[in-house]
């Protein structure tokens, strides 16, 4: 669906991109992950034909964005970081306008807008002026305009920016619902968002792709250890200091880091383990043997965070251990 080869973009003397190369197959949801200024928005703007590249080849559905931009634009729906909304229009008027200028036939406009309004859950506000809507609804209208003409490729720049937690979950579901019918590429610097929404992650740094794969693939390739988070109820009268020491003696455990508990309860311990290899079964067996009741043992989200930091800011790794706060006693 997307083929980018040796793409360069200069703004004056400053190189924003280059050499950037990657390919994306149809139907995938791909996340472009990078720090601010890494080149995410520039890449997406070039894909959306909003910006011309300095050199290189960008093909969308086999069509070149430089030589045939009008053809490419009809295949693409684009939501920039700030949704391009006419605040004086109602949601419905705006979507009809967006559909028409993107080539929807007059006879199809009304039914397609109905469909998109339903999909993006805008029915209740479709007659309201956009200027009166909340930020979350405006983002939804932004997504709706990007898909109203049934594009093959949907390009979303920071779609969850500024949303509250409930809206983030709703937006994630909305983006996931686009999979299959559309190929989706979205950018974010929020790691958990990318890992939960996307099938594949492209890490971009200094205008180049520095890593490419699923979360598991990136972790396996770039991390020398695995991190797991444990919530367990310890037996009454446990010597916590001695427990941390014995825990560190288990084969495969590199580091034990106490954490602030996410939930309150008697004798509850929350801690994170850094493992040299996958010894989760041995950890469980050890804890059960010590009389612990295990409430939760999950792979830490900080894995991806560490990969991201390792790639984007060389020398900055192990966020979890360096930024962690002590819980009950030190290990």
């Amino acid at each position, binding site marked *: 669906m997307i083929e980018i080869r040796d793409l360069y973009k200069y703004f004056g003397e400053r190189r924003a991109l280059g050499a950037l190369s990657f390919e994306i197959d149809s139907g995938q949801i791909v996340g472009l992950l990078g720090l601010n200024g890494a080149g995410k928005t520039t890449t997406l703007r070039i894909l959306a034909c909003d910006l011309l590249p300095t050199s290189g080849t960008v093909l969308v559905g086999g069509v070149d964005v430089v030589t045939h931009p009008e053809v490419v634009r009809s295949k693409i729906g684009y939501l920039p970081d700030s949704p*391009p909304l006419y605040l004086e229009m109602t949601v419905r008027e705006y979507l009809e306008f967006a559909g028409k200028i993107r080539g929807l036939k007059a006879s199809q406009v009304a039914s397609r807008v109905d469909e998109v309004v339903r999909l993006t859950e805008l029915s209740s506000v479709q007659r309201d002026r956009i200027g009166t809507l909340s930020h979350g609804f405006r983002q939804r209208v932004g997504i709706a305009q990007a898909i109203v003409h049934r594009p093959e490729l949907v390009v979303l720049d920071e779609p969850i920016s500024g949303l509250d937690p409930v809206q983030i979950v709703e937006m994630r579901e909305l983006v996931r619902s686009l999979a299959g019918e559309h190929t989706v590429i979205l950018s974010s610097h929020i790691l958990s968002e990318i890992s939960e929404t996307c099938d594949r992650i492209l890490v971009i740094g200094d205008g180049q792709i520095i890593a490419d794969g699923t979360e598991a693939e990136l972790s396996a390739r770039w991390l020398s250890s695995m991190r797991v988070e444990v919530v367990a109820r310890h037996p009454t009268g446990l010597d916590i200091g001695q427990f941390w020491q014995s825990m560190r003696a288990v084969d495969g455990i590199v580091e034990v880091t106490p954490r602030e508990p996410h939930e309150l309860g008697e004798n509850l311990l929350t801690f994170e383990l850094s493992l040299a290899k996958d010894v989760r079964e041995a950890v469980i067996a050890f804890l059960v043997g010590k009389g612990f009741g295990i409430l939760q043992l999950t792979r830490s989200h900080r894995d991806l965070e560490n990969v991201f930091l390792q790639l984007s800011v060389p020398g900055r790794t192990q966020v979890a251990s360096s930024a962690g706060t002590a819980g009950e006693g030190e290990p």
Partner: protein
Amino acid sequence: MSRVFILARRDLAAYFRSPLGASIIAAVLLIDGILFYSQALTEKLLSAEVLEQFFYNASGTTMIASIVISMRLLAEERQLGTFTLLNTSPLGDADIVLGKYLSAVLMLGLMTLLTAYMPLLIFVNGKVSVGHIVVGYSGLMLLGAATMAIGLFASSLTSSTVVAGIVGASITGALILQWALARAVDAPLSALLAAMALHHQNFKPFMSGTLDLGCVMYYLMVALFFLVAATKMVEARRWR
């Protein structure tokens, strides 16, 4: 081409979704009305002279209104971020410029049409030729269309409507003042400068009811020149 009309229709409707359109029309009608009453009706003039005076006054308000309308056409879209919607749709750069221009010219047409009651009042106590009125209004539309193109070009240069307004007014003012410059230099340069003047030599025939094809061509060429320049600016901004 149909997408040009879709864009023009949206923009035209936008004038009336906000107080902007009504404000501009009201201001033009107020100023034209005051000038018409104070100069044309209170001075002892022949009917044709009253009409000529009306077109002279209206040309000033038309140019000012044209700059006010056109200065926001592209600059405001950039300022609000809505230009991205147009820029990433299958519209070509020329389509965007044409759609915007068409909406502004239609707005100008509506505004100009609403002033028609003033020349019609002359028929109450006097007599003028309908042809004179038609030619005079054609001149106003051509002058306004040329000024709109200048304003649109200025609007393509920046994302600030204020800066666009200043640049548009400066270009328009410089073109108007060519007639003054023409008087200060010798022939043949004086003739060239006088022929380039946006108002004086090129608008006077319309005021007196004379349809001069050379003047019509002049206004069309000015409009075309600045529309092409605006299109090139929109294209150039795709590099930034």
